[in-house]
C-alpha cells in the first residue's frame, strides 16, 4: 500500500517535469534567439563591412575614403525623411483626431481599416505609382516653385520628369502616414474622459476641449509616433529607388540629384562585388545605426508617456 502511494507521485512527477522543461526551454530558447539574431545583424554587417575601413581611401568609390562617400547618402536620406515627417505629421494628427473625436464609431473603424490598408500596400507599388502618376503631376508645381521661390537654393532648378528628392519625400510622407496616425489615435482615445467632460462643462467648444484636454495628454505619444515614422522613412528603399533619378548631393530639392542610403544599396547591389560590396554593406551599417538611434529616442519618449499616464 505504502509503496504504491509513494510510487504514484514519483511516476507522474518526472513526466510532468519533462513536459514543462521542454516547453519552458523552447520558449526561453526562442526568446534568446531574438537576442542572437540582433547581435548577428550587428556582427555580420560589421564583419562584411570591415574591408572598407582597412583598405586605402583611394580604392573607395569617389577616391576620397568612406566618409566622403557616405555623407552625401546620409544627407539625402535625412533630408528626404525629415521632409516626409514634417509633411505627414500634421495630416496624420488631423486624421487621428477625426477618427477619435469627430467621426462616429462605425466610420472611425472603417477609416482605421483603410489606413491599415495604406500601411500594407507594398512599397514597390508606391514607387511605381509615384513615378508614373505622382511625379508628372508635380512638374507644374515644381515650375511654380522655381518661378516664385527660385531665389532659395532648395528650389533652384525644376526637373522636367519630376523624379526628384522632393517627390520621393512626398511619397514617403504618404507611406508613413499610417504609422503616425495609428500611434496618435491610440493615445488620443486614451484621454481621460473626465478631462474632456470637465472642459466641455466649462463651456469650451469642441476644438478648445481638444486643445486643452486631448492634445496636452497626447503630445508625447504623437512625438513618439512621429519618430517611429521617421525611422520607417529612413529605411524605406524601393519607393525611393524607383522614383529618384540619382545623382551627386545638391541642395536643390526639385532637380535631378541626391541619393539615399537604401536606394543606393538597392540600385548597386545586384552588380556589386568585392570592395564595392563591402562599401554598400558598410552604408547599410550606417543606416542601421541611424534608424536604431531614432527608434531608441522614440521608444524613450513613448515610455515616458506611459509612466506619466499611469499617474492619471
Amino acid at each position, binding site marked *: 500500500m505504502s509503496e504504491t502511494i509513494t510510487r504514484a507521485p514519483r511516476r507522474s512527477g518526472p513526466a510532468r517535469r519533462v513536459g*514543462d522543461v521542454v516547453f519552458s526551454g523552447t520558449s526561453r530558447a526562442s526568446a534568446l534567439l531574438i537576442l542572437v539574431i540582433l547581435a548577428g545583424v550587428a556582427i555580420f554587417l560589421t564583419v562584411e563591412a570591415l574591408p572598407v575601413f582597412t583598405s586605402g581611401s583611394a580604392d573607395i568609390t569617389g577616391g576620397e575614403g568612406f566618409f566622403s562617400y557616405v555623407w552625401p547618402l546620409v544627407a539625402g536620406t535625412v533630408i528626404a525623411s525629415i521632409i516626409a515627417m514634417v509633411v505627414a505629421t500634421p495630416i496624420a494628427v488631423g486624421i487621428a483626431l477625426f477618427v477619435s473625436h469627430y467621426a462616429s464609431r462605425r466610420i472611425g473603424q472603417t477609416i482605421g481599416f483603410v489606413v491599415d490598408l495604406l500601411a500594407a500596400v507594398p512599397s514597390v507599388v508606391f*514607387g*511605381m505609382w509615384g513615378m508614373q502618376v505622382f511625379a508628372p*503631376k508635380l512638374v507644374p508645381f515644381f515650375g511654380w516653385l522655381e518661378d516664385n521661390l527660385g531665389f532659395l537654393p532648395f528650389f533652384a532648378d525644376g526637373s522636367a520628369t519630376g523624379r526628384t528628392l522632393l517627390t520621393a519625400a512626398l511619397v514617403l510622407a504618404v507611406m508613413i*502616414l499610417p504609422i503616425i496616425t495609428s500611434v496618435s489615435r491610440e493615445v488620443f482615445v486614451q484621454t481621460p474622459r473626465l478631462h474632456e467632460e470637465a472642459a466641455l462643462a466649462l463651456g469650451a467648444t469642441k476644438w478648445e476641449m481638444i486643445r486643452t484636454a486631448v492634445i496636452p495628454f497626447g503630445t508625447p505619444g504623437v512625438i513618439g509616433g512621429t519618430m517611429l515614422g521617421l525611422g520607417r522613412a529612413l529605411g524605406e528603399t524601393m519607393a525611393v529607388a524607383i522614383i529618384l533619378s540619382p545623382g551627386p548631393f545638391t541642395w536643390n530639392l526639385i532637380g535631378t540629384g541626391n541619393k539615399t542610403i537604401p536606394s543606393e544599396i*538597392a540600385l548597386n547591389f545586384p552588380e556589386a562585388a568585392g570592395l564595392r560590396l563591402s562599401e554598400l554593406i558598410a552604408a*547599410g551599417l550606417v543606416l542601421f545605426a541611424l*534608424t536604431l538611434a531614432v527608434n531608441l529616442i522614440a521608444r524613450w519618449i513613448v515610455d515616458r508617456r506611459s509612466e506619466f499616464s499611469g499617474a492619471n
Partner: protein
Amino acid sequence: MSTPTQERTTGPRMDHELDHLRGVVPSPVRPAPPHLSLMVLGGAVLATLLLHLALGRSLVLSVVIGYLLYVVGVNVAYRLTAGARVATDHTMRALIYGAFVLAIIPLISLLWTVVENGGATALNPDFLQQTMNGVTGVHDKAYVEDGAPMVGGAYHAIIGTLIITGIAALISIPVGLFTAIYLVEYGGLNRLSRAIRFLVDVMTGIPSIVAGLFAFALFGVLFGVGTKNGVAGAVALSVLMIPTVVRNSEEMLRIVPNELREAALALGVPKWRTIAKVVLPTAASGLASGITLAIARVIGETAPLLVAVGFTRVLNVNPADGPMNNLALYAYYMFTRPLNPGYRDPSIERAWAAAVLLVICVIALNLLARLIAKFFAPKTGS
C-alpha cells in the same frame, strides 16, 4: 506665514499664464445662424466650379483654391456672427476633415492606377501560367507592332513568392509564438523578458534592406561569398516578421483571463499543458489574425529579396539552390528594366499586373485577419 503669501502671489499668475498658453480666451459666444457652414460650403463649391469651367484652371488647382476659400470663409462668417471662439472651432473642424480627405486621395489614386494599368493582364490565364523563360525584347516588339499575343508571365514569381513567404512563416511563427509565450507565461517582468521586449522593439525598426544585407552576409560567411537563394530571402523576411508576430501574440496572450490559468493549475494540470490546452486555444483567433497580418506585412517586401535572393527569369522551385523570383521583385525589374527599352509598354504592363496580384494578396490577407478575429473569437457567454 511666508508660504501662504507666496501661494497668493504665484497662484493667479499661473492661471493667467495658462490662459495664454492654452489659447482659451473667455469671450462670449453668440448663436450663429443655422446652416451657416453649409452656405459657405455652397459658395466654395460654386467658386471651384467657376474657376474650373469658366476660367479653365486645372481641376486640382480649383479644388485647392475652393477648399482654402471654404476655410477662410467659415472663419470669417463665424467670427462675424458667433464670435472668435466658434470661428476657431469651425476652422479647425474644416482643417481636420481636409486632412482626412487629403490622405484618402493618394490611396484612391493608387488603387485606381493599379487596377487600370494591370487589371486586364493580371486576369489573363496565360500571364498566370507562363514564366519569362526565353521571352525577349523581340516578343515585346511583335506584341506592340504586329499585335502578336503577349508572351511571358509571372508564374515563376508567384511560386517564388509562395515558397519564400512560406519558409519565412515556418521560421517566424514558432519562434515568435514561443517568444510571446515566454514573455507572458514564464518571464513576467524579469530582466531577460524586459530585455527581450526592448530588443523586439529595436527589431521592429530594422530597415528591410538591412535585414536583406544581414541574410546576405550570414549566408556569405556560412556558404561562401555571394550565395543567393530562397532560404536566404526567407531568413531576411523572418527578421522582419518575427517582431510583428511577437508583438501581436503577446498582446493576445495577455488578454486571456488569469482565472482560466489558475483554474487549470488548481486542477493539477502541468503548466505546459495549461498553456497548450487552455491559454493557446482561448487566444487562437487573435493569434491567427496577428500572424495573418504579419504575413501581409512581408509578402510585398522587395528590398531584402533583391539583396538576398537575386533575380531569375526561369522557374526555380528549390529554395536552397540559386536565385528565385518573387512578385514584388518581378514588378520592380519589369518596371525599371524593360525587356525591350524601345518598346517599354509590355514590360510595364507586366509590372502593373504583378502589382495587382500583390495588392489583391495584401487586401485579402487583411480581410482574412479581420474575419478570423471576428468569427472565431472565443465565446464570452459566462
